[in-house]
């Protein structure tokens, strides 16, 4: 399924990340997953949170730069080769993955994977048809 990822622009400056995380904490936003794509000058934070819209409003109010990006959230079994299976299905259908990151689901049997594909809608359908489960239940917005 398509879920909302909170994307935040971060300057490469001491204290910048903590400013963001503190702000989220103050606004009672629970972070489920975090990944950073960085360059020498700046980084782009990708977050899965329980209240993405609340978080975005708080960031903008503080003058921080953020946006909501649509990504695919899917569940895979916590077994060797499970992620590979998911990626292979996508590759076979010619869908390119721009980035992905994974986080634990809370159950020992499965993990959650966040995927940003060049064509999110196509990727979502392919994964669904291949029997991958959607993830849900942690986002309130």
């Amino acid at each position, binding site marked *: 399924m398509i879920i909302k990822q909170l*994307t935040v622009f971060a300057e490469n400056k001491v204290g910048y990340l903590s400013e963001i995380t503190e702000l989220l904490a103050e606004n009672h936003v629970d972070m489920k997953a975090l990944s950073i794509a960085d360059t020498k000058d*700046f980084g782009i934070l990708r977050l899965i949170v329980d209240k993405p819209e609340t978080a975005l409003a708080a960031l*903008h109010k503080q003058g921080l*730069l953020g*946006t909501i*990006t649509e990504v695919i959230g899917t569940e895979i079994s916590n077994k060797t080769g499970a992620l590979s299976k998911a990626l292979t299905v996508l590759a076979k259908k010619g869908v390119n993955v721009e980035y992905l990151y994974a986080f634990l689901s809370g159950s020992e049997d499965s993990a959650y994977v966040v995927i*940003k594909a060049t064509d999110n809608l196509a990727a979502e359908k392919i994964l669904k048809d291949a029997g991958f489960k959607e993830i849900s239940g942690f986002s309130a917005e």
Partner: protein
Amino acid sequence: MEKQYYQKEIETMPVEKIKALQSEKLCKQVKHVYENVPYYRDLMDKKGVRPEDIRGIEDLHKLPFISKSDLRETYPYGMLAVPLSDCVRIQSTSGTTGKRVIAYYTKHDIDLWEDCCARAIVAAGGTKEDVVQVAYGYGLFTGGAGLHGGSHKVGSLTLPMSSGNTERQIQFMLDLKSTIICCTPSYAAYIGETLKEQGYKPEDNFLKAGIFGAEPWTEEMRRDIEKSLGIKAYDIYGLTETSGPGVAFECEEQNGMHINEDHFIAEIIDPDTGEVLPEGSKGKLVFTSLDKEAFPLLRYRTRDICVLSREKCSCGRTFIRMAKPMGRSDDMLIIRGVNVFPSQIETVLLNEGYAPNYRIEVDRVNNSDTLDVYVELLPEQLSDTPDGVIKREKDLSSAITTMLGIRPTVHLVPPKTITRSEGKAVRVVDKRKLHD
């Protein structure tokens, strides 16, 4: 609607009459300066010009120029042309380019200066029904004092806000229903940005016009401010050396500023040779003040580069118009041998959809000039991959290269990381240490 003027007879006077008036005033003024300012008398003597050689504006070119360095040399009272006891006010330059210059005024000087500002306010649609929010700095800076006095003359309700305290500016603007705002263009842009952040739409305020000056700004920035505040934005020009804002002002045509020719003569000269250039030529702007008693400057070389036009204006005013200055000559940077005006970079930013919040840093690394431009990224421009941001930086760099002929390094930064100005914006940091 009938056209409004503050002093119709003067503002719409036939050109021949203006010139005759200027000639008459010039002869008197030269005599006044020669007799009362020893420094200027020396300059004239050295050049071999006597007051009786000046019989009209056609003889103006015979007079020596003066420039900011003369004013620094004669600081503080060396240019005074009346007894100090006849002066009632001191104002001073903002000191953006070094040592401050002070100007002194008699009651009469203040009166005429305020008339000039009143003409600007009326040209922007101001009447006694208006609420004029003066958000220029008050104090030594001429911006606040000039527009404040002009607003009084028009009979508008004057809000002497001074600059800064943006929250309070906005609160008063909305509560007291300000209809005209006067401040620097960069501060107007900042107020517009803050209003938007607070969730206000342009139609939520009562403003109809803004009178902006004291720093160079571009046409693109004008459109930006007009959109964000929902107003018509008018340019106003002046220098502390000539009195302050109001030397020239824009009418509803927004096509150049009418110079108050009953009080000032404008010339365009070749900056290198000092030769007077014909109308329509680009060059350095020179002013002669015709009515000032205490601090009457003759042929004062500004650092502004612009063009004059005598073309008829539909507003009915006959005063010559000056184009928006390209920038003060001391705003101009020479980078890798290329002349660069910050306003050129601003034009590109606004054309490419960025906000006019930027900082230009020039440095010299291994004997080669570097140009770095820091620009704030808007929320809708954020990409979820570094490549997206880097591509934007490259595209913007290419667009600036097309304009300037030299390639800058563009850095996109988060909003609010570039310091906002409440007065004159400091947009250029030149770190090159070429002279010790």
